[in-house]
């Protein structure tokens, strides 16, 4: 039904476009063949906003605002991945996009999205000064200089307006009223170590995905998979719900020079099979990801999460030295994404598949049973070393049994929560929040998300920054975010998140000012009435 609905919409859009052509309304001005508009004195700007499911109402609203300043604006609906291919070929003009950051630093957001020719630069924006500042911000060694560079980059970005800047969303999760000690995390992880339930010692989490990729910590690239794995396996360091890095399996670390980290490990940490974790396991874990044939003869998909790592060495049973290729200030922010495995266990299992079926780490819960498409059942590990000192309570987990269930349909997740079948759910749909808030058996919890949503502009087609700024001034985002996303989305001035390093809070988002927008368009040579 869903698919059929999409087809009908596509067909309807196509038919509508056909009618328009016949009526002569578009007079051959297809936005994707518009080319360089700057020479088009006295013409009307026409833009097709390409959107995919989930952001169509928003795109329609933006188009309506653009029409108010005399832009001929339409929305075209795509399947997300089909659209991306077209965007990369440079044939589209404006498109809804999003990009997640997991290091709380523009290094994995503004850098890939806006540096010239970088991997995620779908807007074809290129400004050598911004490139230089982003490099300095993401690879410098002095925090103040880095912050300063990022601040300057934001100043230029807001002038250049490579995109119609957008917003980030709240992470909205909900629990039954008897759940104690659960805090939603900005990286949307669910850490059950510190959670308990009044009157019960088991808990079920409703996950938003239909399946996990693997329970082998080195063989997936998926946040939700990591959420489950992170309850079985611990890392050298972990993150607080607010994104701060704190020691976990590490006792402490030092950084004698910008490319060297020496980690002291906690002593007496036990794997679930009772063996002790030592530096050998840590070295093995990292080398397994670094080796081109580390996971069943192939490269682990998590190599990129090790940053510019050059080598890892054991100094003693409880000391490990990491060497980087070059200084990399966000390296510690990447480190929670690597979970320590037992060398002996992985070698015994032989394959990634076998390891995925028998996961065994140092985490607060041990694996009991489960299937990646149904549910994963875990049980408290009584010999747990206690976890991070920075995240009380320290000690074994409080719950005896925890289950992660795959419930991809949001309404079903909400119903399961209301019926008490599950006790924590991920990603509450915006339209259901008021209903849940009115229910005294349920608690709705929120924190800031780390994914940026925007409407990217093709800077090779819209080459005039005045035009791009005009498009920003034309849209009343406050109204859109309030009406469509129920106030759960928050405006962002440029391409940097308030939760990230180097965010400049003094920069105000481009304000809603249709008169200014018209004026800018006129200056650029367009008709606006």
């Amino acid at each position, binding site marked *: 039904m869903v698919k059929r609905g999409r087809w009908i919409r596509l067909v309807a859009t196509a038919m509508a476009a056909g009618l328009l052509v016949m009526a002569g309304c578009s007079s051959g001005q297809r936005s994707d063949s518009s080319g360089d508009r700057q020479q088009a004195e006295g013409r009307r700007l026409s833009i097709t906003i390409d959107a995919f499911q989930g952001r169509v109402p928003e795109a329609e609203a933006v188009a309506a605002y653009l029409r108010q300043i005399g832009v001929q604006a339409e929305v075209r609906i795509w399947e997300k991945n089909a659209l991306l*291919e077209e965007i990369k070929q440079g044939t589209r003009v404006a498109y809804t996009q999003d990009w997640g950051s997991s290091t709380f630093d523009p290094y*994995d957001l503004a850098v890939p999205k806006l540096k010239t020719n970088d991997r995620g630069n779908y807007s074809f924006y290129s400004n050598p000064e911004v490139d230089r500042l982003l490099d300095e911000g993401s690879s410098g060694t002095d925090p103040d200089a880095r912050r300063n560079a990022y601040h300057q980059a934001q100043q230029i970005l807001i002038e250049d307006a490579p995109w119609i800047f957008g917003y980030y969303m709240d992470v909205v999760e909900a629990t039954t009223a008897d759940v104690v000690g659960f805090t939603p995390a900005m990286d949307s992880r669910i850490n059950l170590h510190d959670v308990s339930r009044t009157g019960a010692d088991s808990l079920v989490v409703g996950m938003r995905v239909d399946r996990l*990729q693997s329970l082998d910590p080195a063989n997936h690239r998926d946040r939700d998979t990591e959420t489950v794995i992170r309850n079985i396996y611990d890392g050298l360091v972990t993150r607080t719900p607010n994104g701060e890095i704190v020691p976990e399996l590490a006792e402490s670390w030092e950084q004698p020079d910008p490319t060297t980290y020496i980690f002291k490990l906690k002593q007496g940490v036990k794997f679930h099979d009772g063996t002790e974790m030592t530096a050998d396991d840590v070295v093995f874990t990292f080398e397994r990801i670094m080796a081109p044939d580390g996971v069943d003869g192939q490269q682990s998909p998590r190599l990129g999460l090790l940053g510019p790592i050059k080598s890892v060495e054991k100094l003693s049973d409880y000391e490990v030295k990491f060497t980087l290729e070059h200084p990399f200030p966000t390296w510690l922010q990447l480190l929670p994404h690597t979970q320590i495995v037992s060398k002996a266990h992985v070698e015994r299992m032989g394959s990634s598949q076998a390891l995925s079926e028998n996961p065994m780490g140092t985490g607060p819960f041990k694996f009991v049973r489960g299937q990646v498409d149904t*549910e994963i059942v875990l049980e408290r590990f009584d010999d747990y070393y206690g976890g991070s000192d920075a995240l009380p309570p320290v000690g074994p987990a409080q719950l005896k049994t925890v289950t992660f269930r795959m419930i991809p349909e949001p309404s079903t997740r909400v119903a399961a929560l209301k019926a008490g*079948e599950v006790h924590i759910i991920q990603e509450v749909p915006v339209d259901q929040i008021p209903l849940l808030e009115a229910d005294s058996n349920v608690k709705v919890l929120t924190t800031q998300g780390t994914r940026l949503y925007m409407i990217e502009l093709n800077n090779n087609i819209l080459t005039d920054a005045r035009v791009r700024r005009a498009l920003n001034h034309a849209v009343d985002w406050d109204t859109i975010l309030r009406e469509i996303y129920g106030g759960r989305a928050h405006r962002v001035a440029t391409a940097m998140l308030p939760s990230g390093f180097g965010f400049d809070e003094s920069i105000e988002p481009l304000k809603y000012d249709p008169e200014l927008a018209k004026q800018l368009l006129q200056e650029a040579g367009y008709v606006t009435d």
Partner: protein
Amino acid sequence: MKAIRILERVLTALPMSLLMLLLVFVFVRLLPGDPVDIMMGQAGNVSQAEIDALRRELHLDLPLTEQLSIFVRGLLRGDLGLSFREQRPVTDIIAEAFPATVELALAALTFALMVGLPIGVISAVRRNSVFDRLAMGFSFLGISMPAFWLGIMAIMLFSVHLGWTPVQGRLSAGIAPPDLTGLYVLDAILARDWVLLKDALRHLVLPAVTLGAELTAIIARVTRSSMLEALQMDYVMAARSRGVPEWQVVLRHGLRNALIPTVTVTGLQLGVLLGGNMIVETVFGWPGLGRLVVGAIFGRDYALVQGAVMLYALTFLIANLLVDIIYTQLNPKLEL
């Protein structure tokens, strides 16, 4: 003789399945969208080296003809390849999801036959009665109601409000699934585990009824109209004039001859049900094939899509064969 005919049918269907597989191989690659892009997520921290390595691993850097030859060589060894996203054999992943779909499909089919057939027969016998009108009205609703709406309404009423049935899943948390056939109801009976049976049935009833609602309505309508026709036939009048009791007339002379259209429709629908119902599976958190395949298509997991299509071809083949065999049982004049 019959066995040979059946074998013949199977053998002639094999080239068709192969052809279809080849078509899918090409079409799935023609879909816009890059699997590697999707797998690596639109997030930072991914190096170009990783992307290139992955593309090589999946043979996506090779020309289409070479990819095809690798695929066909694997196929000849009975190997459908590794899922792109999970790096596990496609056959394993499908084998995990298929029993859930089979169980749901069979339950939906059983429900549809047990409810649809009697309604169709009674409506035909009591033509234009209040029962007939109500039944046909409801069957109209059954055909028109979208499954996702019906499913969510059923959850709201029976699970959240009344608390009679669980919201989702195949078993309650805390109940370990049996490890036999993967059809939990059957497994529970085989193991004589009545707690498990009750739990599995409680979880099965809402999705089965939701999935079966449309088929129930179709069966009721088809049975009614073919019964009406059969009851007008000479042999029915002859039976009546011989003084055969009315219930025997209806069942033995009427229904038996009226069943052929019903069997046809049911057989075709069984193929559809076994193909996996993505909507019902998604709404009820049922880890079946439909959900798997939709995920695979959106994720451009070419290998998994190919494997699933192969299975679809087989299920349709078998369902059609079953229908033909039942025909000959119902009417010995028909041949395979």
